[in-house]
């Protein structure tokens, strides 16, 4: 078969057909993967909540927009047999070494951190991403009414990650943001 001539009508028709077929195919794939993607995201959030809170059997979810923040925080109030066991907050900071990252922080009794878990981040592998390791365990069980959520260099109580002070500061910032919002919600 001879190659098609590059006439105006041929080119327009070809591009139209190519894009139309591509759009149809993508629409089909999008529909087929919509459900699994939602499930995968849900599972990830649920796994993170499980990591930061004690055992629970029911979750209530709501969102708030923090003061001066660019995105909303999501609160997950956890209950066991109808009794509240704590709150997990999906929070973020814009001060990371490579921009915004998201973490999940769990609070019990309003002031005590029960655990943290990193959700999404772009911090340097080997340096900033050590916040995913046992480093974050130092926050466990700390009561924020007395614990100063700042790295030691800034006069706080947090041991920063070696060579990743910026990531450590950002981590504190995200946790602090979650705590501030919790206090605000309690005040209402």
């Amino acid at each position, binding site marked *: *078969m*001879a*190659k*098609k*001539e*590059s*006439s105006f009508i*041929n*080119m327009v028709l*070809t*591009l139209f057909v*190519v*894009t139309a077929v*591509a759009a149809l*195919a*993508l629409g089909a*794939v*999008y529909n087929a*993967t919509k459900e*699994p*993607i939602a499930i*995968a*995201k849900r599972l*990830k959030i649920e796994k993170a909540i499980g990591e930061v809170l004690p055992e629970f059997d029911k979750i209530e979810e709501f969102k708030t927009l923090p003061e001066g923040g660019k995105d909303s925080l999501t609160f997950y109030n956890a209950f066991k047999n109808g009794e509240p066991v704590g709150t997990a907050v999906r929070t973020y900071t814009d001060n990371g070494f490579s921009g915004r990252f998201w973490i999940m922080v769990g609070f019990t009794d309003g002031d005590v951190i029960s655990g943290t878990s990193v959700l*999404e981040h*772009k911090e*340097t*592998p*080997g*340096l900033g991403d050590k916040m995913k390791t046992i480093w974050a365990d130092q926050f466990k069980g700390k009561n924020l009414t007395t614990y100063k959520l700042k790295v030691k260099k800034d006069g706080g109580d947090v041991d920063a990650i070696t060579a990743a002070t910026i990531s450590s500061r950002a981590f504190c910032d995200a946790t602090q943001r979650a705590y501030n919002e919790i206090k605000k919600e309690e005040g209402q």
Partner: protein
Amino acid sequence: MNQLQNFTKGFIKDNPVFVLLLGMCPTLAVTSTAINGLGMGLATTFVLVMSNIVVSLIKNLIPDKVRIPSFIVIIASFVTIVELTMQAYVPDLFDSLGIFIPLIVVNCIVLGRAEAFASKNNVVSSMIDGLGMGLGFAFALTLLGTVRELFGSGSIFGMKFIPGDAILVFVLSPGAFITLGYLIALLNRLKKA
């Protein structure tokens, strides 16, 4: 050229990473661990094979002047399919590859093979070419990732066997250049022997 040569050329003789030095952006950026390299390589292989097949199927229906835009649309569609599928079924790998999955679109190997090979050859040869080139790319990325992970984190495919920290520079970007340089030198030496 027979089909076997057509397939194997992507591994050593015309390896996209070590010989052609194409697709450096994902090569250097995602290979901090072996599994990332493998994942990226396989995703690219899929896109390469599919786009090569489609391009060689419709090569006579596309007027010359609009062939590049048509190829790009075809490639971009397959990349989006890969992206959505990975997001749905391997979310962890998708998270660690992040922005580099959509960037397969601009990977010169993919458009390069479509333009230089698939638009001039039949479907079977194009498919084999795509498979060979893609697996060659995957092989190179996995090798790079394995070396960097071994020296940088003391593990291979996530299995740790050197406790504590290793040579951090291998995980960072300079380590990617250093490792790539040594691997190319090694390969050139082996080819001469």
